[in-house]
């Protein structure tokens, strides 16, 4: 296995390479940007139509009151978790291979949360009254209902979004200073100057920076877990069969990390190509993420089985009914596709040769993401179609093109935000790659010296 990164890479070169990504990406960048814009336009069109007509155009009905919007909401929230995984958990564990890739993962966290927030809005019947859900003192003397898991959700997502944005920003300050020092004209200079806050890399700054980064990372980990547990709580707190499951919170968290990791692989491949980051986003690092993803895939699969088993051996006939319906009912193709994508496809990541094969891993990561999207859908819809009350079972509901359009559009929105970010801000953390290179070269020097000593000693 090769090295995660070339140790002899010059620090100045790192600056140069990364700063280049702010200037001249490949043409593919613009193509993807344009496509994303168009796709986002589709979503906007659908929302405008739905806003004017009413939610009915989404083909939702009673009892099937939620559909792809909520499924997509969970999907995007879930995707956000791997950013935290890479930046916070691996940071605490001193896994320095995360350094070249954590920045974009963290950006992904922020933007997928922003995308998820969109779905909260488009899902509402009266989005123009969305401010009723905000806890602010008002002349109506009415506060939101703090007992509602949806409100916890809103609070958790808000906390997570703002914390991860802050985390992203704080971690970026030294890099912004680099940008400030190297880009000398235009609006960018002003932006970087303001955002860099006058960072100079003094010992005092670094000292406080280190402690802050560590502390926030410590906060982010339980936060991330709580966010997806609370999203799981939206379902697990209800009485509906198939949702009222004790293992839902860990199951959701595992699913979140899983889809996030899969998304990181996809974006890794794309960024590596578009911004010519071959030196930094190296195959050995890919290999590490792939292995991590595989491990999480197995955790997810295990939790899936636990859920099925606990439903199967319970005396909750309704929950059992939902499970059976998932397997043989109208959603069966999607459910089996989810099982296939989520639990079978990851075994492709066990093949050593494929672990560093970019096209294969790209395809696998897309399949995993598809599987995770289906998973969320399969959590939401089958329960509605086959709930507690037999008279209102509803096997014919199918999301309308409006729903699909908005799901589609959300990918455009995410891609748009993400690409703009990568073009404006360094998507590889320069200072941390320097640290990585520095420490690794020191390490190998020491090793070499140790070897020499050993040789000497032997002599």
């Amino acid at each position, binding site marked *: 296995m090769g090295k995660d990164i070339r140790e002899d890479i010059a620090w100045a070169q790192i600056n140069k390479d990364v700063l280049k990504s702010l200037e001249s990406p490949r043409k593919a960048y613009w193509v993807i940007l344009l496509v994303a814009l168009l796709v986002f336009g589709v979503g906007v069109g659908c929302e405008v139509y739905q806003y004017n007509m009413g*939610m009915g155009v989404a083909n939702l009905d009673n009892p099937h009151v939620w559909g792809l919007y909520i499924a997509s909401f969970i999907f995007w929230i879930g995707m956000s978790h791997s950013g935290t995984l890479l930046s916070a958990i691996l940071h605490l564990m001193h896994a320095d291979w995360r350094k070249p890739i954590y920045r974009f993962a963290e950006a992904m966290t922020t933007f997928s949360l922003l995308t998820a927030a969109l779905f909260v809005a488009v899902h509402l019947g009266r*989005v123009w009254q969305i401010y009723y859900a905000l806890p602010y003192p008002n002349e109506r003397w009415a506060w939101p209902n703090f007992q509602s898991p949806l409100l916890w959700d809103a609070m958790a997502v808000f906390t997570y979004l703002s914390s991860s944005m802050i985390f992203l920003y704080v971690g970026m300050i030294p890099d912004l200073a680099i940008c400030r020092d190297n880009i000398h004209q235009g609006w960018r200079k002003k932006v970087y100057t303001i955002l860099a806050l006058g960072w100079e890399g003094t010992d005092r700054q670094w000292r406080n920076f280190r402690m802050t980064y560590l502390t926030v990372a410590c906060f982010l980990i339980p936060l991330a877990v709580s966010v997806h547990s609370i999203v799981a709580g939206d379902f697990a707190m209800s009485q509906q069969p198939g949702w009222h499951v004790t293992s839902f919170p860990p199951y959701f968290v595992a699913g979140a990390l899983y889809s996030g990791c899969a998304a990181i692989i996809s974006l890794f491949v794309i960024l590596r190509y578009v911004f010519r980051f071959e030196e930094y986003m190296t195959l050995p690092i890919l290999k590490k993420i792939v292995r991590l993803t595989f491990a999480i895939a197995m955790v997810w699969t295990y939790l899936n089985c636990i859920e099925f088993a606990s439903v199967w051996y319970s005396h909750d006939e309704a929950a059992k009914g939902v499970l059976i319906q998932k397997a043989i009912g109208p959603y069966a193709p999607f459910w089996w596709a989810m099982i296939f994508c989520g639990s079978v496809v990851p075994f492709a990541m066990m093949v050593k040769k494929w672990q560093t094969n970019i096209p294969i891993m790209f395809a696998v990561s897309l399949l995993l993401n598809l599987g995770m999207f289906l998973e969320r859908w399969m959590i939401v819809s089958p329960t509605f179609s086959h709930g507690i*009350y037999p008279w*209102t079972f509803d096997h014919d509901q199918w999301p309308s093109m409006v729903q699909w359009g908005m799901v589609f559009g959300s990918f455009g929105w995410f891609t748009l935000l993400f690409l703009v970010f990568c073009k404006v801000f360094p998507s590889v953390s320069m200072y941390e790659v320097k640290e990585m290179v520095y420490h690794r070269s020191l390490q190998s020097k020491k090793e070499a010296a140790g070897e020499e000593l050993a040789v000497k000693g032997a002599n």
Partner: protein
Amino acid sequence: MSVSNLLENWSKFRHTHPVEDKGHPDWEAYPSDIKWAMAIDLDACTGCNACSVACYAENNLPVVGKEKYSHGQAMHWMRIERYWDESESGFEVDQGARFLPMMCQQCEAAPCETVCPVGATNHTEDGLNSQIYNRCIGSRYCSANCPYKVRYFNWYDYPTTKDVWPSPMNEQLNPDLSVRSKGVMEKCTFCKQRTYVARNNAKTEGRPVQDGDVQTACQEACPAGAITFGNLYDPESKVAQKWQHQQVELTKEKQDKDKTEGNRLRGYRILEELRPYPSVMYLERVRESAV
């Protein structure tokens, strides 16, 4: 904000419904000696749909038309369900069908109430589950969490939808309650507009609400008189007597009588085991097997 308020409310409201004591004696606006409840005799119900149509007439329910009905977007607050007897070989028709009028059960511990993010659905002092239309933002969580699926969402803006209330059909709309616009949830209110009038009249006359002061629209229409409605806290009321006779207690999730084998009573509440404490008691349909 006052600390004393906080502490007071903490203890005062710790346990509200369902409890043994009647409502909240301290409730400022309405001293609550009323708990509206229903009893529906399935043996009398013929499944004729009169209640449902009466509900349309009384509560300004939109007729959504075939296409929207096919999407499951019908707005019948009161629906009649038709079940067959089941056996190994399929449906049995020898004893006819079973009809079940199903509307909001006005649960005492309603699953819908706690989950609404904006507090648009709350418990009222007279024991109903109320929906505040102009507070509702349409998250539909209440419906998602309703075990009976008796909450209906305004998927479209029905007042402006073609052929829902074309002029002069709109002149029939009942001015006692609103016509709901798109994006809000609605459901059976136990004809709140009628109970409200009854309570006000009683108040004006300086007496408590008596049995028979108010009928719900469905009850009023029901040709077989299968629906009994009234104040459960009034021991004189028919509905209270029925509940009492059938030994169905509002505050129990498992009735004592069900623990004894071979009780000869037929009152039950649907999905009681989920502990929503519904306010509607059904009486089992009786069939004679002599023929």
